[in-house]
């Protein structure tokens, strides 16, 4: 059962990006288990922090959002302070907060994201995410995108996969309201 469930979601994307794939046939190299250093990543943070299921929403131009689950593999807090990508002129960490009207609103996360020891921190549609702005080229379904997180444990490069996604549409419908308010940077 162990080997049958060895799921390595981003391996294909890693391979396409020209990075060496993790070896170990038959071993459980599932992204959810050991702090396996990912080939191509810096030695330090890859054992301190793991990125599961990284993906970006496909976009023709302008901006788009990227998501993943960040896992703090250490027993101390880790701060994510910035992100950068060759695919974007500007990259920000965004959080979603309720404004004075009780409506959800996205804004740059001033202090970045802080992961408590052993915390799994979700970046997901409609919530915290990485924002790619000033896209240098269309991000097409199935493309790999390199994003490097700047963290208190050092830089952590990762390959995100671009996916067509119609859900959550980066728009918000406050309860009791029939109007959809499209966020400008979906």
């Amino acid at each position, binding site marked *: *059962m162990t080997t049958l469930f060895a799921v390595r979601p981003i*391996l294909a994307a890693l391979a396409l990006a020209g990075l060496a794939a993790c070896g170990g046939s038959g071993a459980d190299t599932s992204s959810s288990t050991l702090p396996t250093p990912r080939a191509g990543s810096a030695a330090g943070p890859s054992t301190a922090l793991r990125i599961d299921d990284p993906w970006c929403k496909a976009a023709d131009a302008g901006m788009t959002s990227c998501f993943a689950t960040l896992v703090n593999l250490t027993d101390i807090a880790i701060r994510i302070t910035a992100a950068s990508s060759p695919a974007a002129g500007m990259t920000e960490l965004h959080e979603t907060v309720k404004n004075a009207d009780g409506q959800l609103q996205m804004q740059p996360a001033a202090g970045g994201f802080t992961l408590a020891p052993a915390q799994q921190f979700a970046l997901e549609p409609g919530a915290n995410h990485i924002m790619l702005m000033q896209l240098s080229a269309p991000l097409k379904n199935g493309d790999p995108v390199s994003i490097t997180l700047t963290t208190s444990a050092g830089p952590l490069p990762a390959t995100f996969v671009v996916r067509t996604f119609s859900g959550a549409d980066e728009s918000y419908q406050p309860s009791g309201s029939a109007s959809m308010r499209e966020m400008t940077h979906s």
Partner: protein
Amino acid sequence: MSATSRRTALFCGLAAGVGGVAAAGCTGSDPAPVATTTASRAAGATAYRPFRGVHQPGIADDPQPYAAFVAFTLPGGSDRTSLRRLLTIWTDDIERLMSGRGTIVDQEPELACVTAQLTVTVGVGPRVPGLAGAPAPAWLAPLPAFAQIDRLDPRWGQADLLLQICAASPTTLAHAQRRLITGAGDLVRLGWVQRGFREPFAGGASGLPMRNLFGQVDGTVQPDVHGSDVGLLWVGDNGPAWLRGGAGLVLRRIAMDLDTWDRVDRGSRENATGRRLDTGAPVTGRALTDAPDLDAVDDLGFHRIDDAAHLRRAHGTAPHERFLRRPYSYDDPPEEGALSNSGLLFAAYCADPARQFVPVQRRLAELDLLNLWTRPIGSAVFAMLPGASDGEILGQALVA
């Protein structure tokens, strides 16, 4: 149990410890109790098949009860790069779905929890190797016309890509189909969908035989694709490098006229195939696996297996004229004024359909009593890709 499977079990609210290929099969010799226990039902729900390997799943493994064959065409401008993007997506989605996880963009991941032996098998049509700059095998083309029998509707015709989705649960199948179609986005255009089923209680030592909707035992005498006939199924060293470990698929949609079949008496029905209806044995034998005696004659000197019987006409005249059949029945809503819209999704897998399948089909087109009640209305040929090894995408050698 690995951490991932444990996480899947926790997310899915399933009891840990169930699952595995064997859990779903009918392995015991004792008859099953009348009421299926909760435990065995749960085990069936979480039974899964491995995705990675030399060959894709869904071909040489036991057919699951439900299938959808989903065809796609490629939009203009498709090339090696867009094919690579598509196969990157499908590889990841299929691997997740088969292991009980939603896809990375799945909004209903709970529907993936019931793996139900899900397999998804990817095939490519004749245009794809060229778009990828790779050589195509000569057989990867529409079959020659069989004018005597073909009544082909272009609606069920050749396509660029095929997803063969099989599972023991129609809900699991529907979810996988939905996610794989939407996951591909504008990289493909959806063509036809052909849905089929087999007897869910068929198979195994104590199971029932697969019967088509004429009531005939079907698809039972097969090449030994796990043993001496392995070379008949998988493309070997004489095939293009990107296809080694893959297989050809001939998918024919055969309409079966249940209304005229109703008028045929039992003796004539058995004569049409050369097999007994009850056991599936040749009319010259007793057991399903008995070899037919093609020379046996009756008191009047006529062949006991009719000269036009399906069995005789389909019988290979050379050892290589054999292929793996994995058929599914279909029973779709009747057209207005009709009473039935039923038939068989005839799926034959082999290393070289032109060499192995076409001679047999040619004989059947020339003469086969079953042609009185059957009509091929769809036909397509695909190259089912080799399996994906660790770190590879499906079609790695074609597009990467």
